[in-house]
């Protein structure tokens, strides 16, 4: 009997010991495979988190960005999602609606000063949070503005639509450039809604009616949208921009002096600065309803199937430290999510060469439609913008786009909660 008591006590002690030291594994998927710098940074965050506590150990599986969304969708179908995943901001509502993600429970006071575009909020709940944002600007040179006799626009006083038109005309008439404007037509996919729908929104239109998200009627084919469509088409009929662009022209054209202006993101800004020491990053023009640029980049969230959502949230909260925001910005050039982190980064601190992007993101950033239907709407918008650029009838193209978007919304029962 005495032996039995000792045995029970020993077993209990061992069991308690193993419970106390049990470390749960959290699987994580990330889109950065192939980007050596990015992988080093995310691995550092994971190593620090794993060393900082004993409850959880994060294990990373990285994917190439182009294959990431398909892999997540396949993983969800096969019931094989990880605990933590990253998601491109505009896709988050769809993944939340489809049941891939669950709301993220972190101390929201810690993200109070984050850039608006870094917060993935859907149906009033936070689902994802980004360590950085991206922004687009109109890239040019001070010497170009001077030579063309143009005012330098500012955040407070951006160019109006008329001023932008005059700038394009002056650049074209100067005969110095192959095209006045590089829009990045060589890029496809998400670039279209990210880069070009803000023009539409500045005209007063939108991809979908954001008050209800039930239809695109009026938003994408109303007066404002028609005005945008006609303006968009005239960029190509007037030969200000090319509707078909070679990838090499996109990558090298501005640096080679082929374009007076380039509509490009902050990720390409250091290259532009390297090409010309008088490079300027101008705010988006205001076509009547305020200057707009796209917001929201990659963000972290918790998968709906995670058995340890509290652990996953703990990791994400850990990653939100300013030092990591600054490290990512230093490493991959994106905009740190907080002013305090921006102050730690040479490029983005006050007076830094890219500081203008923090202001642009804060002042002009507008998230794409926050609806599960966005993934379809983005493709419809891409096709419509591309067709119009290639000479399609503006009104008919936009009407067709509205029909397609509305049909998709109807087919999915208005994307009501499942």
């Amino acid at each position, binding site marked *: 009997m005495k032996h039995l008591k000792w045995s029970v006590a020993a077993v209990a002690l061992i069991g308690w010991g193993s419970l106390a030291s049990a470390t749960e594994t959290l699987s994580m998927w990330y889109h950065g495979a192939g980007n*050596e710098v990015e992988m080093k940074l995310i691995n550092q965050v994971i190593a620090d988190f794993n060393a900082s506590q004993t409850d959880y150990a994060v294990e990373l599986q990285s994917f*190439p960005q182009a*294959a990431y969304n398909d892999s997540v969708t396949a*993983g969800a*179908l096969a019931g094989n999602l990880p605990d933590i995943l990253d998601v491109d901001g505009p896709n988050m509502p769809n993944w939340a609606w489809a049941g891939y993600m669950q709301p993220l429970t972190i101390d929201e006071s810690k993200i109070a000063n984050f850039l608006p575009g870094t917060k993935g909020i859907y149906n009033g709940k936070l689902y994802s949070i980004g360590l950085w944002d991206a922004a687009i600007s109109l890239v040019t040179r001070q010497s170009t503005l001077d030579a063309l006799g143009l005012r330098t626009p500012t955040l407070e006083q951006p160019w109006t639509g008329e001023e932008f038109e005059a700038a394009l005309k002056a650049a074209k008439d100067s005969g110095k450039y192959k095209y006045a404007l590089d829009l990045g037509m060589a890029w496809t996919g998400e670039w279209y809604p990210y880069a070009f729908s803000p023009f539409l929104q500045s005209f007063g239109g939108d991809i979908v009616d954001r008050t209800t998200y039930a239809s695109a009627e009026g938003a994408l084919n109303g007066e404002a949208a028609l005005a945008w469509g006609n303006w968009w088409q005239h960029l190509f009929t007037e030969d200000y921009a090319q509707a078909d662009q070679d990838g*090499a022209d996109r*990558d090298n054209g501005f640096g080679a002096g082929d374009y007076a202006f380039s509509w490009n993101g902050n*990720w*390409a800004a250091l290259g532009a600065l390297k090409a010309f020491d008088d490079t300027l990053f101008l705010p988006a023009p205001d076509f009547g309803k305020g200057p707009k640029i796209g917001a929201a980049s990659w963000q972290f969230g918790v998968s709906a199937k995670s058995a340890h959502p509290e652990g996953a949230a703990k990791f994400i909260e850990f990653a939100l430290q300013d030092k990591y925001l600054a490290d990512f910005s230093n490493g991959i050039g994106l905009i740190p999510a907080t002013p305090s982190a921006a102050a730690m980064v040479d490029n983005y601190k006050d007076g830094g060469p890219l500081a203008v992007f923090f202001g642009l993101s804060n002042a002009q950033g507008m998230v794409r439609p926050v609806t599960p239907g966005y993934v379809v709407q983005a493709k419809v918008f891409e096709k419509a913008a591309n067709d119009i650029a290639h000479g399609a009838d503006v009104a008919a193209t936009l009407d067709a786009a509205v029909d397609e978007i509305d049909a998709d919304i109807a087919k999915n029962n208005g994307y009501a909660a499942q």
Partner: protein
Amino acid sequence: MAQISQDNRGLRLVVRYAVLCLIAAIFSFPLIFMIVSSLKPSSQLLADAHSFRALLPVGDISLQNYFDAFKRAPVALFIFNSVLVTGVTVVASLALCSAAAFAFTFVMWKGRDLALTVILATLIVPFETIAIPLLLEASKLPWIGAGGITWGWLNSYRVQIVPFIADGLTIYLFVQYFKDLPGELIEAARVEGASWFAIYRRVVMPLSGPVLATAAILKFLVMYNQYLWPIMVTQEEQYRPVMVGLQYFFQLNRAWGEIMAYLSLITVPVLAFYLYLQKAFIASIASTGVKG
């Protein structure tokens, strides 16, 4: 008169070879561009892209892109995975599909024609339409390994191999070829008392070199170029093939030199395999009219 005829023949030969050389040059331009570009820095590659320099190894030439490609991605692992998956699938496919075609061609059994029709009908079904049901199936299949029974085939080589071993096109190729073999050979073997398996192995297969080469090359290309299925079933890097690996190089700021270096590296197994089988492949095209 004879002299003129001789001159004409010579001229025709020259013209014919000139045209053939021109066609060969046009078809080899992409390969030359890829290999030459893999030796240039991205900036020079893009600058040369619009001139004839794009096809010449001139300027700042080095192997740096190859070193950088190996740093960016586990290139050797991806090539190994693709060669393994493709090799095993091709060998298994040749064995299984030829045996099936033998049964469809030479053995009389009830429902044979209907079964062959159903198999051929699968040729019009695109893989994309069955990808999701196949994924759901593969994620629940059992497997008996060293650790006992496990469920789900995701993240493995077998999930990339087994679904592609048998296919309608390969069976069709063998059936068409077998139909042209002299029936007397099979009858003679039967009269001699040979079993069906012995006829398959000792009579039919030794005569099937051209169709084996054609089927092998077509299967090789399909398997080596797999992209959609691997990204659906391989979440772990250690099982990824070359085409998924290619996406590692498409970052926001694309390193075109590295992309060309990677493409050059992954093209080597394809070229080697094709060159090894090309004589038999051409013979098969000449005899069956089938081409890839």
